[in-house]
């Protein structure tokens, strides 16, 4: 049932090969293979899907029972691989007695930076995560959002190639979310691989180039949302068309082979179920020109991460 859609033209930073992970009798991951390259990758799945286990494997916190996890050609468990990884774990834990600035400087020290280099990096990441003016307060006085930012600063201090973020927007206010999302996009634009585990699916729509859907320890699908949606051929694409006089257009649309059903929502909306999206777009283009349809909107309504996730979950629940 796995759907592969990742472009592997460039050697990926992360290579996960046939990885399984057991905790006693519990199989947390079941034969997962994936690759992660530069750009933003979203990791999506319900609670208990195996997301955290996968993140732990990628950050070298645990070892696979079977298979291998490689970061930049090194086994993730080894120290060499960790030099390439920045990890922002879930939860608020930090060395609370330190100030934010001191915490980041200590982390710089833990990565082997000394003196001016450590200070310079500290100031640079504090500015990047927007904490310069609040960095001298003890971490224990920080709000949840501020903690997320300072943790992100810790993860960025050694300029890693792969940034692994477990629910990084948890507790961050809306303005902060926009700022951090822009930061993630900037990092991705600079060639970094950013892996974001999140349950806020609509944020992934805007943010992620690729999505990894996991459920019950299996990788259900990976690739861009569009690619995955296209492959889900047994779920008709839902398209919203806004035009003048939809009642006249509706019967004509039913004549198109790719259109499965049409619902009219006055005053100007039509909701279509489309069997073959590529074919539909081609047919609809010709149709609109031929009939001089004045379109004000043409949009697929179920290509969001949430919709695709629902389809994948439904598909996974079906008996084999």
């Amino acid at each position, binding site marked *: 049932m796995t759907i592969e859609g990742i472009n592997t033209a460039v050697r990926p930073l992360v290579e996960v090969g046939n990885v399984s992970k057991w905790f006693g009798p519990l199989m947390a991951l079941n034969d997962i293979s994936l690759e992660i390259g530069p750009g933003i990758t979203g990791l999506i799945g319900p609670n208990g899907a195996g997301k955290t286990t996968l993140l*732990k494997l990628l*950050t*070298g*916190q*645990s*070892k696979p029972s079977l298979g291998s996890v490689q970061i930049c050609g090194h086994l993730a468990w080894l*120290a*060499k691989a*960790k*030099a390439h*990884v*920045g*990890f922002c*774990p879930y*939860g608020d*834990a*930090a*060395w609370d*007695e330190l100030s934010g600035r001191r915490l980041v400087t*200590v*982390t710089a*020290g*833990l*990565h*082997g*930076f*000394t003196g001016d*280099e450590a200070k310079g*990096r500290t100031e*640079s990441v504090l500015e990047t995560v927007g904490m310069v003016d609040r960095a001298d307060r003890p971490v224990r006085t920080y709000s949840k959002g501020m903690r997320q930012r300072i943790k992100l600063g*810790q993860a960025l201090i*050694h*300029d890693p190639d792969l940034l692994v973020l477990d629910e990084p927007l948890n507790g961050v206010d809306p303005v902060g979310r926009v700022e951090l999302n822009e930061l993630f996009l900037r990092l991705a634009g600079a060639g970094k691989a950013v892996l974001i585990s999140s349950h806020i699916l609509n944020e992934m729509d805007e943010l992620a180039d690729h999505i990894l859907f996991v459920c019950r320890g299996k990788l259900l699908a990976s690739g861009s949302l569009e690619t995955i949606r296209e492959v889900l051929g047994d779920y008709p694409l839902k398209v919203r068309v806004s035009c003048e006089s939809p009642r006249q257009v509706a019967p004509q649309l039913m004549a198109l082979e790719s259109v499965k059903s049409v619902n009219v929502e006055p005053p100007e909306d039509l909701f279509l179920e489309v069997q073959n999206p590529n074919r539909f777009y081609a047919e609809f283009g010709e149709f609109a020109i031929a009939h001089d349809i004045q379109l004000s909107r043409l949009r697929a309504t179920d290509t969001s991460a949430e919709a695709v996730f629902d389809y994948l979950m439904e598909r996974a629940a079906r008996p084999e």
Partner: protein
Amino acid sequence: MDSQPNISRFAACLQVFRLTLRRQFFSRQTIVIGVQLFLALAITIVWAVPKPWSPGARTGEQLAEQILSPLFMGFLLPLISLGYASSSISGERTGQTLVYLLSTSIPRPQIYLSQFAAVLLLTLGITLGCLSSLCVAAGMDGVAVLREFAPVVTLATVCYVALFLLFSAWLRRATFLALAYALMIETLTANIPGVMKRITVSFYAHSWLYDDSPLDLAPNANLPPYEPVSGGIAVAVLLAASIGFLALGMWLFSRKEYE
């Protein structure tokens, strides 16, 4: 951040050392240990004051037999060691901050060694400081006793720290096991006849003390029923145990997957 970074593995280990030292010193353990030391000091001062029924000055042998051996070596030394050593790695684990250490590019054995060095330095500072205070508080003879006890306490501290740090790497709630060990094994087993006491650190520490001391510290009716081994064997066992515990802890810490 595009310039070539100047990364030093030694500096990274030093940071682990400093961080551990700071976090352990500024912790609840230090307060608890401070209270214990204050009480021990008070007991020693009261003990040292000449009594109407025993007007003469206390001797070094008396200090060793009545205060340092039972109170300090039998009780305080393991408690101080476990206070810091057993809470270092397991404390980071329960506080969910161990992940920050394990996410760095420092190999795990080096993280463990850095933690060991920090905890050992702190524990040695406190135990030797405590020993010195007790000896000084006891009077002039105490300084001579300090010279006899200092090397024994140093090696026993190394052994205890290595053991309790191993517990810390192994278990989330290592302090409970360490306490059980200190109170049940070190305190009780060390004072019963038979060979069971040979599994305790204090047995070998006392054996070394009795064997090499110019003071008259040989076992007598006032001390536990010791059948000491020779000083050479005692030192060898303490050294071997310290190295063994340290190596085992490093191995365990390097392989264990922490939640």
